[in-house]
């Protein structure tokens, strides 16, 4: 059923028809018709941000915590270029976003018009797909297709660039229908090849030192995928580790949980990855933070890899059983086939393996020396975790990027998927605060905390103002070490402790800053007062900037340094970081 309307009205109508309730945006000349159409309806609520990068991270937090696509609306030129970081972030972490960018009128395209930029050119390599709409009658198809592409297969960001004259033009709108979703060339494969899944289960049935290595793909495949992962783990009795992006898919409170793996993963997870005989990768992509030195990566294992993106398979690590498909569907099949073969977990056969794992666990690789005079950052996160466990609310954690992010991954524990939002692939400082805003918009009654560093949080600090405007009671838990701690750690490791520009001089007074924004500021310096201060933060019904003054020179350990295999992980009792990495390793990042 076609209906006549303007391009701008189509945008709003399509959002409503796609079930979009919130969009994050910022107006400007080229976007005004769409803003005007928005003004005249109340189906879609607009959240006014303070910087377009903030809008993209909010949309990411919104998407990751709900499983629904996040939607962004920005103006042409600087609006679009400001969105690029978040688009790239979403591409790297496979987050479904639809970003509508306004463009100068078609007659001005190519003339270096005011606030013109080549948005589709700039975003081509940082989106899953993008469109420049030059005919209003293409707009309904493009809008619906954008949602389809963003949310299916391997999710990702999609940009729709809409010139101002197309927003004014009148055309025929139609609702999303099955036909519009049947794309001629875009057909992601969701069902895994049955033979390959059987081969995988046969390998698992013979495994003596198995490990599940799971990633963000399990989260993207929906909550049922996490349920199925739990079930398969229980059926098999195998240990489970996960990437940074996959935390929460398997409960951290389960005895089969080994902690995160990778550069700052636990000793047991990394050693088990190195020594296993069957590796079952579900929705992870052998990222370099995980593999360490490739030619020494898990040298004696047979590898199964489940991924919805065929290009992820054999890209970095050669695997023995590739399975292209949606993690949830493949997990379901694995469970069914496992059940048809046996009704026993491999408890006895893998008992020696578990014994070995227990020995590695006993090393206590996340241990740290606590102090009664200065707050240790790891301890601050542990106290925060304990305090939030007492809350009746759902708890969502976002982070910035740096040491605090890794400590959060290590010491805050997740039992559910979609409760942990972090910038993994791109490592974007400034992600966490806006992401927390986005999560809070989606879950108004939840407790949403951004575990932050004092350097990162200043990159998108202005979104505090958004939080205040929309009464979003996010808590920003700053582990303030007055350092770009992660950079400082690498300088210790690689550059003779020459701290080139890695400390935070002239920091703002975060308490006053919070007050200036209309929020609450809290500062805590003493371990004895930390619990009370955390309680004060949690009790306050509004946005809080909580400045936790922590130990300045703590290192984030364990760590697999660049150029090293998993079994050469640096453990917490290593005093001298400076002598570990050789000349070639220094060239790495």
């Amino acid at each position: 059923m076609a209906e006549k309307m303007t391009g701008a009205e189509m945008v709003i109508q399509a959002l409503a028809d796609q079930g979009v309730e919130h969009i994050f945006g910022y107006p400007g000349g080229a976007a005004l018709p769409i803003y005007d159409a928005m003004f005249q309806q109340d189906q879609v609520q607009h959240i006014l941000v303070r910087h377009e990068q903030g809008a993209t991270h909010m949309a990411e937090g919104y998407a990751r915590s709900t499983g629904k696509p996040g939607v962004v609306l920005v103006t042409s030129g600087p609006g679009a270029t400001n969105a690029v970081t978040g688009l790239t972030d979403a591409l790297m972490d496979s987050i479904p976003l639809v970003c509508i960018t306004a463009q100068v009128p078609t007659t001005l395209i190519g003339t270096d018009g005011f606030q013109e930029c080549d948005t589709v050119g700039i975003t081509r390599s940082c989106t899953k797909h993008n469109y420049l709409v030059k005919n209003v009658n293409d707009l309904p198809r493009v809008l619906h297709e954008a949602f389809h592409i963003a949310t299916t297969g391997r999710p990702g960001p999609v940009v729709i660039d809409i010139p101002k004259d197309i927003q004014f033009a009148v055309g025929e709108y139609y609702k999303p229908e099955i036909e519009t979703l049947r794309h001629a060339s875009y057909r992601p494969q969701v069902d895994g090849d049955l033979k390959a899944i059987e081969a995988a289960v046969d390998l698992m049935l013979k495994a003596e030192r198995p490990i599940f290595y799971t990633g963000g793909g399990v989260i993207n495949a929906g909550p049922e995928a996490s349920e199925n992962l739990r079930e398969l783990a229980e059926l098999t009795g195998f240990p489970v580790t996960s990437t940074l992006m996959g935390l929460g898919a398997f409960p951290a409170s389960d005895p089969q949980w080994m902690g995160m793996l990778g550069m700052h993963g636990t000793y047991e997870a990394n050693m088990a990855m190195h020594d296993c005989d069957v590796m079952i990768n579900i929705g992870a992509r052998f990222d370099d933070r995980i593999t360490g030195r490739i030619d020494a990566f898990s040298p004696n294992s047979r590898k199964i890899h489940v991924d919805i993106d065929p290009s992820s398979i054999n890209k970095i690590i050669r695997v023995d059983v590739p399975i292209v498909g949606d993690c949830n569907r493949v997990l379901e099949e694995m469970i069914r086939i496992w059940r048809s073969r046996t009704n026993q977990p491999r408890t006895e056969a893998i008992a020696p393996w578990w014994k070995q794992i227990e020995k590695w666990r006993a090393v206590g690789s996340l241990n740290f020396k606590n102090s009664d005079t200065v707050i240790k950052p790891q301890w601050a996160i542990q106290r925060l975790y304990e305090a939030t466990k007492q809350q009746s609310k759902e708890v969502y954690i976002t982070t910035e990027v740096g040491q605090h992010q890794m400590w959060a991954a290590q010491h805050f524990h997740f039992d559910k998927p979609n409760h942990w939002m972090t910038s993994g692939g791109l490592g974007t400082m400034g992600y966490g605060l806006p992401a927390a805003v986005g999560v809070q918009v989606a879950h108004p009654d939840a407790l949403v905390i951004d575990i932050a560093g004092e350097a990162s949080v200043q990159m998108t600090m202005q979104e505090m103002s958004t939080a205040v405007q929309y009464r979003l009671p996010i808590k920003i838990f700053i582990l303030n070490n007055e350092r770009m701690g992660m950079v400082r750690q690498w300088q210790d490791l690689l550059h003779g402790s020459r701290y080139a520009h890695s400390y935070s001089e002239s920091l703002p007074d975060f308490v006053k800053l919070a007050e200036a924004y209309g929020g609450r500021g809290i500062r805590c310096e003493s371990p004895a007062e930390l619990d009370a201060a955390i309680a004060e933060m949690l009790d306050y019904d509004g946005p809080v900037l909580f400045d936790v003054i922590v130990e300045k020179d703590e290192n984030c350990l364990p760590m697999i340094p660049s150029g090293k295999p998993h079994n050469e992980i640096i453990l917490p009792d290593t005093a001298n970081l400076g002598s570990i990495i050789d000349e070639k390793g220094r060239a790495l990042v």
Partner: protein
Amino acid sequence: MNAHLQPTGSAYFLTQETQQTERHTLSVLVDNEPGILARVVGLFSARGYNIESLTVSETEHGRRLSRITVVVIATPKTLVQIKLQLERLVPVHRVHDLTAEGNYVERELALIKVKGTGDHRAETLRLAEAFRAHIIDATVESFVFEVTGKPDKIDSFIALMSPLGLVEVVRTGLAAIGRGAEGM
């Protein structure tokens, strides 16, 4: 505990590439929409793949489909990645590695301008005939030849013309198609 941590002198991105590179011809069927060529070329440059030759034109006007023939030099592992990465692009319908599939024909067309008088001119014409090059422009001191064939035939013709007064060359890049009755 970390006494075993001796520098190993190697590092993960510095692992040696052990595979030999090969030259492959890929045929890519795409929607003929604005920006599609930029998408394909952008993918090659962003991921560091080398393009040897690239030919693109709309082939089925009714269905708005274009065929891209691209010649790449890469290791077998990278060749698989190139195919899979191309297939990730939304407007890409199909990608065939014609070289891997083994049964195809390929042709290239070149326009070659040669300047000369006297003996050189006679020799130029004799060689052109041997290569079945057509004269498509002539003046008293120059020719423009059209040569069609496999790229190495064109290479040889250019090499022969070079001492005889070669002025300039324009090549179309490779067009390739599978043999037999089956289409892509």
